[in-house]
């Protein structure tokens, strides 16, 4: 049970305090309710590029990193399709430095042209490093476009194409900032060696006078139900054939989410999982195979991906995957198998909760999802999943008309 206290400033900023006196450190985590899904389809990759610009100086503070490093702190940030998160860890004595830095860049960025010019290049290099130079690196660009026709999950966080990043203008940066980076669209979590009173005082002092901003009303095109199977073949200079299959699943707040999460654990995620045992070890059709899901806030995707053993025919490999999925749909899992994936989830949560940073991040995430206290009820949600649920959910998810498939074939 993670204890925390929550209050809201007059400008709408939600503040959560989680005390842990066993650490000499404190974590300050600010999550903004904006991700790649909120981008203009003609200006994709912007939320992430923007995350880089948040380190390019704010209205009163020229350099963000140096004062923090001087205070013995460290920080990082990440952007997903759903949200953007910034976190600092520093010695508890220097907590106020984090408030000073984070509040100033929430107040306003410096909107420096130099920063934009440089970070455009940095992000282009990141794009190349992760998506262009790696074998199979473009597959998720293609798969998202195949599986999503309407919803903005059809592009990746890094952006649809390099040109969108290259063309970003300073005016876009400013508009994006004042639309999304307002107190009313953020949650601040302070965790570690602190008292709630101290956080209240500091939050009022540093964040209290920032204009509230307008609550961002998300109105995204929802993905219509898929009604027929989609297929694509890619040929590229990769050494091995690979199979990718995706099915639409529920959104993060639906109770079906937990069933799908356990389903993917049964299928993959360990040496005793079904796909690994059957397709890698027994039939030796794949050299590796994984099943996971996007974990996204809006309706996500369940994914099966694997590389074929050289010489295996794609149709044989795919048929074997389908057979395993048919089993999920038609034969109840054993009590022991269900218990296994529940136990795994329980210990995964315990290990995650060891780190103050991870606790702070989770509290912010659940708060942005709607309520930080959800964090303490996750395990119950998993515990309540039944064998019948698994069967039913498998039948809902693993339908051909709900499926997109990519055959990624070696040209060699």
């Amino acid at each position, binding site marked *: 049970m993670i204890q925390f206290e929550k209050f809201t400033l007059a400008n709408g900023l939600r503040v959560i305090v989680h005390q842990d006196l066993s650490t000499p450190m404190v974590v300050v985590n600010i999550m903004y309710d904006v991700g790649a899904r909120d981008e203009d389809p003609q200006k994709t990759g912007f939320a992430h590029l923007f995350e880089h610009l948040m380190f390019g100086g704010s209205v009163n503070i020229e350099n963000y990193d140096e004062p923090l490093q001087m*205070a013995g702190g460290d920080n990082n940030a990440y952007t997903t399709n759903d949200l953007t998160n910034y976190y600092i860890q520093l010695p508890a004595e220097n907590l106020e430095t984090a408030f000073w830095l984070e509040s100033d860049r929430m107040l306003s960025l410096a909107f420096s042209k130099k920063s934009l010019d440089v970070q455009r290049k940095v992000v282009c290099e990141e794009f190349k490093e992760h998506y262009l130079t790696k074998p199979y690196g473009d597959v998720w660009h293609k798969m998202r476009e195949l599986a999503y026709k309407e919803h903005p999950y059809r592009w990746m966080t890094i952006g649809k194409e390099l040109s969108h990043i290259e063309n970003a203008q300073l005016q876009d940066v400013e508009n994006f900032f004042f639309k999304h980076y307002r107190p009313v669209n953020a949650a601040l979590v302070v965790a570690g060696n602190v008292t709630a009173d101290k956080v209240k005082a500091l939050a009022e*002092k540093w964040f209290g006078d920032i204009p509230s901003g307008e609550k961002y009303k998300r109105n995204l095109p929802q993905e219509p139900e898929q009604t027929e199977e989609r297929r694509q073949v890619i040929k590229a200079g990769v*050494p091995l054939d690979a199979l990718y299959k995706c099915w639409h699943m529920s959104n993060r707040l639906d109770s079906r989410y937990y069933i799908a999460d356990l389903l993917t654990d049964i299928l993959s995620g360990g040496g005793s999982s079904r796909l690994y045992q059957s397709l*890698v070890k027994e039939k030796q059709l794949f050299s590796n195979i994984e099943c996971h899901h996007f974990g996204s806030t809006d309706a996500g995707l369940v994914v099966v991906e694997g590389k074929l053993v050289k010489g295996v025919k794609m149709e044989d490999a795919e048929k074997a995957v389908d057979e395993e999925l048919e089993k999920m749909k038609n034969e109840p899992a054993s009590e022991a198998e269900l218990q296994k994936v529940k136990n795994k989830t329980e210990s995964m949560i315990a290990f995650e909760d060891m*780190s103050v940073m991870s606790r702070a991040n989770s509290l912010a995430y659940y708060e942005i999802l709607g309520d930080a206290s959800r964090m303490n009820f996750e395990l119950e949600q998993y515990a309540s999943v039944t064998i019948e649920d698994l069967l039913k959910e498998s039948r809902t998810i693993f339908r051909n008309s709900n499926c997109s498939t990519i055959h990624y074939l070696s040209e060699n």
Partner: protein
Amino acid sequence: MPDRKQAPPIVDAVNFELKLKQAEKFSLDNGVEVYAVNAGAEEVLSVEWVFYAGNWFEDQNLVAATANFLLRNGTSSKTAFQINEHFEYYGSYLNRACYNETATITLHCLNKHIKELLPVVRELITESVLPQQELDIYRQNMKQRLKVNLKKSDFVAGRMIDAFLFGENHPYGKFSRLEDFDALNRDQLLQFYNEFYRNGKPILFVAGKIPAGLDVVLNRYFGDLPFGNAEMKNMEQQPVDQKKHRIINDEAGVQGSIRIARHFPNRHHPDFIKVMVLNTVFGGFFGSRLMSNIREDKGYTYGIQSFLQNHIHDTAWMVATEAGKDVCEATIEEVYKGMKLLREEPVDEEELLLVRNYMMGSILGDLDGPFQIIARWKNLVLNNLTEQYFYDTISAVKTITAEELQLLAQKYLQPEAFYELVVV
């Protein structure tokens, strides 16, 4: 309204008195050493068995790594599936890893399941059979994985620079080739397993909220094993002569993987600790010279780092980055300019204080939690150091002067000592 131009006062982290929490040390009946750190609020444990069974001890490439991998793939009474199912049923993670000198088995679990898990770990150490079929599957899948990795410039650059520095026959320089996988045979692996695991020399590292009586339980399962000693033979480094290399791995590549590296002594050399500070200034954190110049000013790369390789024997000091193909040479030039600046001008006091504070804050943060603390102890024990090394590090961070740093830069940051590699 707060004065936002004015930074709040800070306590300089350099003034902190950092303490390394003691690890309890005890021996099992057969003399096996156990280090234990009891800390943390969650009911979780990690137990690591470190064997002297790394690739230092193999006569043929990949024998150590393969024996280590196959530890989980079958004993005289359990199949790979049964072993995996057992650990996974209890929500535990059983991992193994092979390094240069050592190879490990690591168990992470909830405290309440430890008694179900330790007997099976014992079985892996005493009764593994490394089945032929498991070897065949491993060989086939690893060869496939290698083929994919060989398409990646960072992977290729990483292994080439090590081979340049240490020679392809040295444990730090050798790398896997497809034919090495083909040459593996089960008898050889069994022999290695028998010598370096079943009759090997482990050290145990335990951390978490340690339940009462864990020492008795560890002794029950591991205190009667016939553990011996592993002699670490001397391996000669055979660096290549040519220092500069440009490799085309992918004609269509849009980025180059740059590695610039020189030899460097190990942690027992008096310069090592001090160079850790110099390295931090140079390329050891986000605010470093290399990062500020090459990423934040020029935008040539998503990231650039310098680091001392984590080796027990003599090691290397390396700069690594992936940069746009057309700016690779410019990036290398900037790296050398950075070295020159450190040789010619003392680091100013403000920058040095920032680095001291940053390093102290980061060590403080690093000591947070049982797994982090035991990792420090493991590092000391395996490198044959005492906790004094930890305090010497703190002291160097606090007191090293700009003059000392400049002298170290003049001694070590000489371009002609560096190997230079770009793989596109």
